């Protein structure tokens, strides 16, 4: 065989080179993304403030309790600043934000920054470990199945993979969490049923969060990998009898990363804001449960602060993913962002 191995398609020349003028594409990219970030921030501030006003129920009444008199409720309302006009309340809120103050919880009188600071690490720990597990399992699993079933081989494996990932991926997290507890905590007594004490307590909630996403991502990777494996350059590589590691890690994997990273970023964002049910099943002291409590108690500052922080985190994560994609494939710098 004389033909050289055809590598993955070479990236297009960096954009921005026109008419002899060279312009760094990163400048425009980052300017656009930062402007978008600022827009997201302003929107979040306005929307979160207005959103809580739409929730029916009186925070002062919720705080004072059912036995409170009208005078007691009125005193709480005054203390919380709820007897001021909406524009005045919004002005205070924005002024506080500009000074780095997210406000004070109506319910517990804690600074909202402390509430978030105390809970976010637990949610982040859960989400980051879960996404690592997702990537560590889904990518090799999806690729492995794609390789094993290439060209219509091992149809039973293909069917089993499709069935199992479909089944687990469609199973609600609370069902998975409960099953995991029944098997590993109650029956086998291998792991704690709930709580956040020690490494062992992390295992079941991380698996419960990661399993559905792992199945979804594994299916995506499997489908993408099947397409990549049928490309001419992969056939050539196989023809040269390259070792499997070099074949798949060097030639196939880079072409799967764009979609995988984009999907992984979206999954991580969803996990940061959406592990409420798993937190409840495992008594995990994360942000999700605290937000639910804040909504029930009409704790406006905690709702606003949490939504704002999670919104900013989501926007920053999307930016990070776009930067990573830009580094992997500069053509994306001029394309629309993932967010």
């Amino acid at each position, binding site marked *: 065989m004389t033909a050289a191995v055809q590598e993955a398609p070479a990236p297009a020349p960096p954009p921005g080179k026109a008419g002899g003028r060279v312009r760094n594409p990163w400048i425009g990219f980052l300017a656009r993304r930062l402007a978008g970030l600022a827009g997201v921030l302003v929107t979040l501030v306005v929307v979160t403030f207005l959103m809580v006003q739409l929730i029916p129920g009186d925070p002062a009444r919720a705080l004072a309790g059912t*036995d409170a*008199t009208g005078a007691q409720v009125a005193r709480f309302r005054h203390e919380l600043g709820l007897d001021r006009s909406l524009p005045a309340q919004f002005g205070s809120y924005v002024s506080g934000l500009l000074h780095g103050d997210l406000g004070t919880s109506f319910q517990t*009188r804690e600074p909202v920054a402390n509430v978030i600071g105390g809970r976010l690490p637990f949610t982040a720990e859960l989400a980051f470990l879960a996404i690592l597990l997702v990537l560590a399992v889904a990518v090799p*699993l999806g690729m*492995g199945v794609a390789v094993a079933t290439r060209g219509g081989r091992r149809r039973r494996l293909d069917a089993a993979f499709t069935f199992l990932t479909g089944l687990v991926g469609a199973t609600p997290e609370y069902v998975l969490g409960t099953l995991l507890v029944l098997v590993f905590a109650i029956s086998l007594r291998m792991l704690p049923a709930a709580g956040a*004490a020690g*490494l062992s307590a992390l295992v079941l909630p991380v*698996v419960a969060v990661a399993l559905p996403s792992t199945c979804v991502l594994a299916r995506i990777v499997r489908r993408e990998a099947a397409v990549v494996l049928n490309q001419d350059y992969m056939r050539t590589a196989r023809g040269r009898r390259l070792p499997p590691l070099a074949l798949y890690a060097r030639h196939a994997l880079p072409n799967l990363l764009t979609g995988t990273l984009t999907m992984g970023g979206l999954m991580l964002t969803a996990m940061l804001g959406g592990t409420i049910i798993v937190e409840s099943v495992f008594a995990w002291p994360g942000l999700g449960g605290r937000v639910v*409590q804040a909504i*029930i108690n009409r704790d406006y500052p905690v709702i606003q602060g949490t939504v704002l922080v999670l919104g900013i985190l989501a926007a920053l994560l999307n930016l990070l993913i776009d930067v990573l994609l830009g580094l992997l494939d500069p053509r994306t710098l001029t394309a629309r962002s993932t967010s």
Partner: protein
Amino acid sequence: MVRTRSAVPAVLAAAAALIASGCTTSSEPSAGGGGGPFRYAVTSDANTFDPALGTAATDYSLARMQFGTLVYRDADQSVVPGLAEKWTAEPDSATFTLRGGLTCSDGKPLTAGDVAASLRRWADPKTGAAGTGLAFGPGAKVTVASDDAARTVTVKLAKPWSDLVPAMAMTNAGIVCPPGLKDPKALNQGPVPGAGTGPYTLTDAQRGRQYTFKLRDGYNAFPAYEQAKVPAGERPPTVRLSVVSNESTAANQLSTGELDYAAFTGPDAARFAGGGYHLHVQPLLRMFVVFNERKGHPGADPEFRKAVAQALDPAAFNKVYGGKGEVMKSWSDSTSQCANTDGSIVTRTDPAAAKKALNGVSLKLNGTNSVAGGSGNTYVQEALRALGAKVALRNVDNATWASDVLANKGDWDVTVMAHLNFSGTLTAGAILLTGPNPPEGRNFGGIRNAGFDAGFAKAMATTDQAGKCAAWGAAQKALLERDDVVPLSTVPVAFVLGKNADAVVTGGAVDPTSFRVQG
């Protein structure tokens, strides 16, 4: 040849490593023989660490551990000594004599003057404290005097309110030592060194997660509960309270030994029937119907109220919540002192008789969905609808319901009151059924019942138990005759303690200072 198996070992290795990392961390030893802390679950985080401001179950638990009260209520609702060794009571005053050798949690002596200062702060409207209406009467003027030499504290009211002494057992009446009174903001947000007067000291507070308490050495003011009802075993030197919002999760932890105690309002309690667990079932919520009796609402018509009472079957309502509650004959159940248990003064269920008055009537039913999703509200809706009434149900969360109904800001005709009566007294419900309308008062139904008001006032004007019950009897009869309330049933709570643990259940709740462990 392409090798395709390389991913499988990698996946298995990753999974094994994750499991192995979990298995390397051993779980904490259990209480009792294990030597670990006594661990119990609460369903939500604390709102405050200040006993005077507490309005939720977790607040009460934290307060009970850290702040002693002058008296406590025993399982039979009788008043027993706490920080006070004895007392004398009149309808408008009470004098408490403190035990000797009382100390604050920093070891400094707790004087009568300190106790008086704490009670003055609780009673002061500027504090915005909870429970003062129950303790002193709505809008009462309170004076507190003390004599350090005689170790006496005297509380005097401008108007008679004979619940004064039992109300001193409420956790809101917890006595705070001077360091806490000097810094109320800090007291609200966390433990203040030297502020405590209770058996335990809060040594570690992790908001939203867990709180750890240590038993004070030489504490001498434990509640003097009837010894026969105090379980055998030792007091745990360390108690850890964890926030577990999901009852099924708490049940899992209790069954695996990760918890020693949890409370259940749902079906998970059934998992612990038998098997050596200690179960105590107590009324949690008292459910009854209240009408908006203001002009323009159907509840202003006594015939309409009677028809609603005839349409509803309290026994069927009880079944909606699992059938483990008590069918009530008043706005509280038979565990409340002086509560009516005579079914003859309650309007009997008679749907046929109710049909004529209800057919075609349009009404707005408003209820909270915080109790089993509001299934009791749906029962009431369907029972009235079956007799021809057009019922618009507004089944909303507790805060919205409280604003709509308790503050009377919503448009409502009938509500199912889910009364969380932590004091277990008739008074706790009665103060919501008389007096001025909101916002000036608490009379959210706009009830005007002179017979009830007279009986209530008379009950509050005597400390003689027989006379008090007679007055309460008259008050309840007057209210039930006019169908101002329609008694339904209690929704119970099951307190479940592990196989080697138990506690005293008093006033419808487990006293967390009474935990005992064996082995």
